[in-house]
């Protein structure tokens, strides 16, 4: 019984959202606001119990799992205070006079994440790709790949005017880019249609049991 009620609520909300295709209406607005409100509440709970509770509250207030303090060793509990305080500092932006304090936390956060990403991105996105593209020019596919790569890189070269050889290469680059966009557009259409199929399947299969 409970399943039928929940599925029906889901179905009504799905239909409310799709009613936007005809035109904007109160059903659509209701569904939209419901999503925004529920997700805010849901995220709050998930973040608290999966993050703040085990990583800050538990070690600081010495809640324990078994015999071990959560995450850090019991003697290192105070380490959890540092990110906890930095996190609280972000709320200083509510007080214009002290708002600047929050920038410290933001600075550490942005700097830390940029640092974490630097080396892996250099490896994954630059070095490994250079290695993978050093292909023997023995097949048409490989030649095609190298020409496309060269053209695209040239198109995004801003230190010289696109004239002569550079101009030709840049033109080749733009052709490759457009072909790439076409492929990605096709995939996107497929993605969006899948979402529709998923909802239709929900309505026909899970709700109405027609298929």
């Amino acid at each position, binding site marked *: 019984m409970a399943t039928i009620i929940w599925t029906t609520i889901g179905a009504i909300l799905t239909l409310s959202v799709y009613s936007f*295709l*005809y035109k904007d209406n109160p059903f659509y607005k209701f569904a939209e606001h419901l999503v925004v409100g529920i997700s805010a509440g849901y995220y709050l709970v998930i*973040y608290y119990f999966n993050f703040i509770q085990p990583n800050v509250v538990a070690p600081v207030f010495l809640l324990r799992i078994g015999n071990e303090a959560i995450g850090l060793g019991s003697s290192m509990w105070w380490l959890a205070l540092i990110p906890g305080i930095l996190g609280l500092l972000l709320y200083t932006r509510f007080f214009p006079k002290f708002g600047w304090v929050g920038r410290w936390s933001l600075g550490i956060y942005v700097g830390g*994440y940029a640092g974490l990403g630097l080396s892996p991105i250099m490896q994954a996105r630059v070095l490994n790709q250079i290695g*993978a593209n050093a292909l023997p020019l023995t097949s048409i596919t490989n030649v095609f790949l190298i020409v496309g790569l060269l053209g695209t890189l040239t198109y995004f070269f801003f230190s010289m005017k696109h004239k002569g050889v550079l101009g030709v290469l840049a033109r080749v680059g733009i052709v490759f880019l457009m072909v790439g966009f076409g492929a990605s557009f096709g*995939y996107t259409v497929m*993605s969006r*249609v899948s979402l529709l199929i*998923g909802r239709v*399947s929900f309505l026909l299969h899970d709700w109405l049991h027609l298929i």
Partner: protein
Amino acid sequence: MNIFERFMNIDRRWIFLAIGIAVVIPFFFPLGLPISVTEPVQNLYDALDAIPPNGQPLLLAIDYAPATLPELEPMSLALLRHAFRNDVNVAVLTLHPAGYGLAERALNKVAEEMGQVYGEDYCFLGFRPGISAVILGMGVNIVNVFPEDAYGTPLNDIPMMDGIRNYDDIPLLISLAGWGAAEAWVLYAHQPYGQRVGAGVTAVMATDFYPFLDTGQLIGLLGGMRGAAEYEELIDHPDEGVRGMDSQSSVHILIIALIVLGNIAYFGARRKRRQMEREAA
């Protein structure tokens, strides 16, 4: 207004309706079009198939949110069915807060269907925010990041996680994501630690991942509902993915037809306009 111009200015709601019909009809009258398996999907299947049973677990990161559910949930169901059928242990986690409920839903469904025991055959670690920090932290020790599972049991007390310390003990990791998480696993688990990573992503993102396949940074890739359907074919358990494929094909045919018609109408209208301009001159 001639026929070309009328077509160019058609009320788009007619197109919505046509697409709706094209999706619904194949559900009632399946076309049964064949589904061929592509190489990246086959590779992922082979990698999972090669994991020895009842030993080191497959780590499945269910990183998707409801918005990409129809594309990615069939993948998690198919992967879980494959793993459980081979008696491969599975540890599930999520990097997306909205993935928490969805991961539980997929896991419970398949575990119940295939009679798997929590803690021995599978476990759910829950959600942690902070993507790169979480992934890097697990490379040192999983317990540091997930001291307990999603239900508060210390990880050390879960039998299947006994002796599982970090990526050295994970034969394969698969991330299913509709956003940057799948790439983050490549960047922060494969690059520094050499973890073997596979991914399942939405079709929108699939093109972005091909460079990683070429370099071997990704073992295999499932792209969109089509990828899920291929995997369902491989494990011989057709479900949502395969069921959606006929609708997908019929909509694609409709869209191709609309693109062709749109182009004919565009060039037709342009020719007519030029003709009229010439006559006026």
